[in-house]
C-alpha cells in the first residue's frame, strides 16, 4: 500500500495557510461535548492539553510521573530554534526549513518541515508571553547562540536549562487549565493499551501505578505525546522511565510505525564509567560553540592532555569539516568520534572518549564568560566525573539521545488509525534521518500549541461526540489483555532481574543496530533478540503483585515491549540499503567515509504494519517528493 501524507497542494510557503483556511471548525458551544485524551505531559503533551483545554474541549491528560512538570523534555539543555533573524545574520523561514531538511539528510516531508519553520517564531513569542526567562543582552533584547548544522545564530536559550524553562511554561499553561476545569490530569498513570473501535481510536486503557487498578477511558480522539524510544539501548541520555510502550501498543493495535531505525546518537555525552552505569548524561551541544574537539594524533597515547603539544593533537572535526568545524551535525560528529576511537586514539579508561577542550576559549574570553555560558554544565560534569573542566578538557563520547522515527502520521499529525494523533518525538514527521540541535523543543511546542488545535478540529467536526463509552466490549477486551500481560509477567518467577534483560538487549542493540550497522550485524540482532525475548518470558523475576505500587512490574512491561520493538528497528535498518543521517550502513559509504544515500530506491518513509509478535511486519511506503529542495549530497566541508 502506498501511503498518502495528505500534504496540501500549492506553493510551499502557502500550504499551511491555505490548509488552515479550508479545514473545518467545531462550534465553540459544541467543543465541550468532545473529550480528547492526551497521553504524556512533555512539551508536546502539555502544550496540546493546555491549548485544547483553552479552546473549550474536555481533556483527560495522563502522565506516568508524579507531576506533569517532570516529563523528560525538562532535561533539554541547549535551546530552541526560531527564524526570527534578530541578529540580522541572514536567517529566514526558508533557511531554517532548508537547514532542517538538509540536516535530516533529505528524508523528511518538505511540507511538514516548512510549516515547522514558519510557526517557530510564534513559539518564541508565546514563550516570552508565558514568562520564560530567555537569555537577554544588556539592552533587554533576546540573545541567540549557534547550534550544529547551521551557519546562523538562531537558537534562543535559558542558560543550560532551556527545556526546563519551556516545559515549566507549558506546565503552567496546563496548570491554569486544570484550575479552570477543562483538563483532568491523571498522574502516576501509565497507558498500557489503545482502544480501537471499528478502525477508530476511541480510548485507552490505563494502569494506576499506585493502586494497580486497570481502567478504561473513552474519548472522541486520542493524542499520544509519549516521547522517544532510545532506551531500547538501555544506556541513553533519556530518563529512566522513558519507554516505547504507548506507541508500541498503538502499533500492535494497527497504527503504523515509521522509520524506527532512525535514531540519533548524540556526540557530546559523558563516557561510561563502569558496569554499574544506569544512564548516560548529555553535555549540551552548545558547548561546541566554544569547545574544540580533539584526540592525540598517535595511538595509545598515555600522556595527560596538557602534556600533549599542539602538533601532536588532531582536531579532527575542524580538519575534516573546515566550514562547520566543531559545529558539524550530530550524526557526523558522532561517527567521526567513533572512528578515531576505533583507530585506537580514544582517551580515558577503555579508550572510548575524545577531548572537548575549552582552553582556547578561556584564554580568549576569560573564565567568567565561560562560566556564565556553561557554568551549570561544568558543575554537572564535575559532579559525575570529579574532574574540573576549567583546568582540563572534558572527555565526551556519543550516546543514544533521540529517535527521529515514530508512529506514522499524515500532515494533520493523524495516524493511519482515524482519531489517533501523534505529537512531538513520538511521531516521525519532521526530522528525517537526523535531527538538528535545538529542533526537538521547537517541534514539540509547534505540534502542541499551533498545529493540533487546528487539525484535530477538522477531524472532530466530522464525528459526533461521545459515540463510544467504556461499556463497549473493546474496552473490556483491552483491560483483559492488560491484566493478562501482568499475570504472565508475575507468574514467570525466574532467576534474572528485569535490568539484567534490559542490559543484555541494550548491548545487542548498541553492538549491532547502533552507530554503524551492517547486513551481518543486523541479521545477528534478528537472531539474538527473539532468543533473549524467549528467555525473558521464561526466566524473569518480578517480586510483589499487580495490585500495588510495583516498580519492577512497570519496568518489566516496558522491557517486554522493547524486546519486540528492537526487532522492528533491526528489520527496518536491514531493509534500508543505504546510509542516511543517523542510519549508517557500513556497506553504503563514500570513499571518504561519508554516508551514501540511495535516492533512486529509498527516498520514502518506511511505515511498518504489525502482523503478530513472531511474524514479519508488512512494509508500506510513503514516497517523499521534493518540489523545492534539490536532493544534494549533504556536505558540511
Amino acid at each position, binding site marked *: 500500500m502506498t501511503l498518502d501524507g495528505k500534504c496540501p497542494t500549492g506553493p510551499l510557503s502557502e500550504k499551511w495557510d491555505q490548509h488552515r483556511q479550508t479545514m473545518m471548525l467545531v462550534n465553540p458551544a459544541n467543543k465541550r461535548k468532545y473529550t480528547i485524551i492526551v497521553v504524556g505531559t512533555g512539551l508536546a503533551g502539555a502544550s496540546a492539553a*493546555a491549548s485544547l483545554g483553552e479552546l473549550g474541549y474536555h481533556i483527560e491528560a495522563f502522565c506516568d510521573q*508524579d507531576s506533569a512538570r517532570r516529563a*523528560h523534555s525538562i532535561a533539554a539543555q541547549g535551546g530552541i530554534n526560531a527564524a526570527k533573524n534578530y541578529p540580522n545574520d541572514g536567517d529566514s523561514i526558508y533557511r531554517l526549513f532548508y537547514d532542517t531538511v538538509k540536516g535530516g539528510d533529505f528524508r523528511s516531508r518538505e511540507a511538514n518541515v516548512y510549516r515547522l519553520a514558519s510557526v517557530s517564531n510564534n513559539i518564541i513569542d508565546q514563550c516570552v508571553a508565558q514568562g520564560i*526567562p530567555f*537569555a537577554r543582552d544588556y539592552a533587554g533584547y533576546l540573545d541567540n547562540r549557534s547550534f550544529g548544522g547551521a551557519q546562523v545564530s538562531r537558537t534562543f536559550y*535559558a542558560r543550560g536549562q532551556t527545556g526546563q524553562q519551556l516545559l515549566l511554561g507549558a506546565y*503552567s499553561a496546563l496548570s491554569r487549565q486544570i*484550575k479552570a476545569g477543562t483538563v483532568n490530569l491523571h498522574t502516576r498513570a501509565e497507558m498500557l493499551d489503545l482502544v480501537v473501535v471499528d478502525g477508530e481510536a476511541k480510548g485507552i486503557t490505563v494502569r494506576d501505578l499506585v493502586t494497580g487498578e486497570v481502567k478504561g477511558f473513552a474519548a472522541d480522539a486520542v493524542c499520544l505525546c509519549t516521547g522517544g524510544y532510545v532506551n531500547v539501548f538501555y544506556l541513553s541520555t533519556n530518563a529512566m522511565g522513558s519507554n516505547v510502550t504507548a506507541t508500541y501498543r498503538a502499533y500492535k493495535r494497527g497504527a503504523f510505525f515509521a522509520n524506527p531505525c532512525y535514531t540519533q546518537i548524540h556526540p557530546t555525552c559523558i563516557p561510561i564509567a563502569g558496569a554499574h552505569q544506569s544512564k548516560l*548524561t548529555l553535555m549540551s551541544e552548545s558547548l561546541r560553540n566554544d569547545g574544540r574537539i580533539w584526540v592525540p594524533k598517535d595511538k595509545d597515547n598515555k600522556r595527560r592532555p596538557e602534556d600533549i603539544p599542539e602538533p601532536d593533537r588532531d582536531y579532527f572535526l575542524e580538519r575534516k569539516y573546515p566550514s562547520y568545524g566543531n559545529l558539524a551535525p550530530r550524526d557526523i560528529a558522532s561517527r567521526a568520534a567513533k572512528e578515531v576511537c576505533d583507530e585506537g586514539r580514544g582517551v580515558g579508561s577503555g579508550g572510548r572518549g575524545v577531548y572537548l577542550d575549552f582552553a582556547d576559549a578561556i584564554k580568549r574570553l576569560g573564565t567568567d564568560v565561560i562560566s556564565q555560558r556553561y557554568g551549570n554544565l561544568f558543575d554537572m560534569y564535575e559532579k559525575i566525573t570529579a574532574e574540573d573542566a576549567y583546568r582540563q578538557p572534558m572527555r565526551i563520547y556519543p550516546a543514544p539521545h533521540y529517535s527521529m522515527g515514530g508512529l506514522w502520521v499524515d500532515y494533520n499529525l493523524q495516524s493511519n488509525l482515524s482519531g489517533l494523533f501523534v505529537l512531538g518525538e513520538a511521531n516521525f514527521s519532521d526530522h528525517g534521518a537526523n535531527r538538528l540541535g535545538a529542533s526537538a523543543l521547537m517541534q514539540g511546542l509547534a505540534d502542541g500549541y*499551533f498545529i493540533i488545535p487546528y487539525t484535530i478540529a477538522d477531524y472532530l467536526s466530522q464525528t459526533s461526540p461521545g459515540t463510544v463509552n467504556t461499556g463497549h466490549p473493546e474496552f473490556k477486551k483491552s483491560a483483559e489483555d492488560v491484566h493478562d500481560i501482568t499475570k504472565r509477567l508475575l507468574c514467570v518467577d525466574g532467576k534474572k532481574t528485569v535490568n539484567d534483560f534490559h542490559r543484555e538487549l541494550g548491548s545487542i542493540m548498541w553492538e549491532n543496530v547502533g552507530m554503524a550497522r551492517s547486513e551481518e550485524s543486523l541479521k545477528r540482532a534478528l537472531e539474538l533478540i527473539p532468543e533473549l525475548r524467549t528467555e525473558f518470558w521464561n526466566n524473569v523475576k518480578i517480586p510483589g503483585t499487580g495490585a500495588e505500587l510495583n516498580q519492577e512490574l512497570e519496568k518489566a512491561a516496558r522491557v517486554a515491549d522493547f524486546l519486540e520493538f528492537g526487532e522492528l528497528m533491526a528489520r527496518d535498518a536491514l531493509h534500508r540499503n543505504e546510509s542516511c543521517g543517523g542510519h549508517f550502513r557500513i556497506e553504503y559509504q563514500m570513499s571518504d567515509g561519508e554516508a551514501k544515500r540511495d535516492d533512486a530506491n529509498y527516498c520514502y518513509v518506511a511505515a511498518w504494519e504489525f502482523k503478530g509478535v513472531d511474524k514479519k511486519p508488512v512494509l508500506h511506503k510513503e514516497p517523499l517528493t521534493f518540489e523545492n529542495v534539490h536532493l544534494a549530497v549533504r556536505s558540511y566541508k
Partner: protein
Amino acid sequence: MNLTLFVWRQKNANDPGKIQEYKASDISPDMSFLEMLDQVNEGLIKTGKEPIAFDHDCREGICGTCSQVINGVPHGPMARTTVCQLHMRHFRDGDTIYIEPWRARAFPIVKDLIVDRSALDRIIEAGGYISAHTGGVADANAILIPKPDADIAMDAAECIGCGACVAACPNGSAMLFSAAKVTHLAMLPQGRTEAARRVCVMTEAMLKEGFGNCSNHYECQAACPKGIKVAFIAKLNREFIKAQIK
C-alpha cells in the same frame, strides 16, 4: 566499598513503616547514590525480597523526582546536589547511611521512600502562571526586559520542584518553593499584571495544603539543590504586603 544502610520501609500509606538494615557490598566510588541502591535492589530481587521503592527519573539533577533524606539531610551531604547526582566517592568504606523519605504533613508517604508531592502542583494550579492564551501574543522583543531583572527571574525559575525545602523546614513550609515562582513571574513585565492576585492565591493554597509557616530557619536554602535563595521569601512577603495595601 562496603556500607551499612538503614532504610525506611513502608508498604503503603496505611502501614506504620519501620527502619530496616541492609548491607551494600562492592560499591564503586564512581557509582551514583541511586546506582548504589539499584545494586542493593538487584540483590534483594534475586533473593526473593521486595526491592526498596524510590522515586527517580532523569538522573541528571533536573526533573526533581528523586527525593531522599540521607543521614538527616534532604538530598544528602553535598551542597547543591540532588540525590541522583550524589556520588559514592563522597562516602567512606564502612560508613553507615540512614535513608528516609521526605517528611512533611503535606507530603503523605506512598511507599517506602516515595511521597505524594501533588500539593506543590496545586499551589501552581492556584495561580503560579501568567494567563497567556495560546496565540495572539506580541512579538518576543516588543517588551524589553533589563538583563538584571531577567537574570533574577531565571535564578528563581531554576527551582526543580523537588520539595527538599519542605522536607528540610522544621515547620514543613513551602515558602521557598512558592517564593521562587512568585519572584520569577513578578520580575518580568509580562507577569506584573497578575502579581498581586497571584501572591495571594498561592499563599492561600499553601495554607490549605497543610504547609507550615516560615520562621526564618533558612534550612530550605541550605537543602536546595538549585541554590534558590531565601531572599526570594522576602520578595514574596513584600509582594504579599503590597497586595494587601492595594
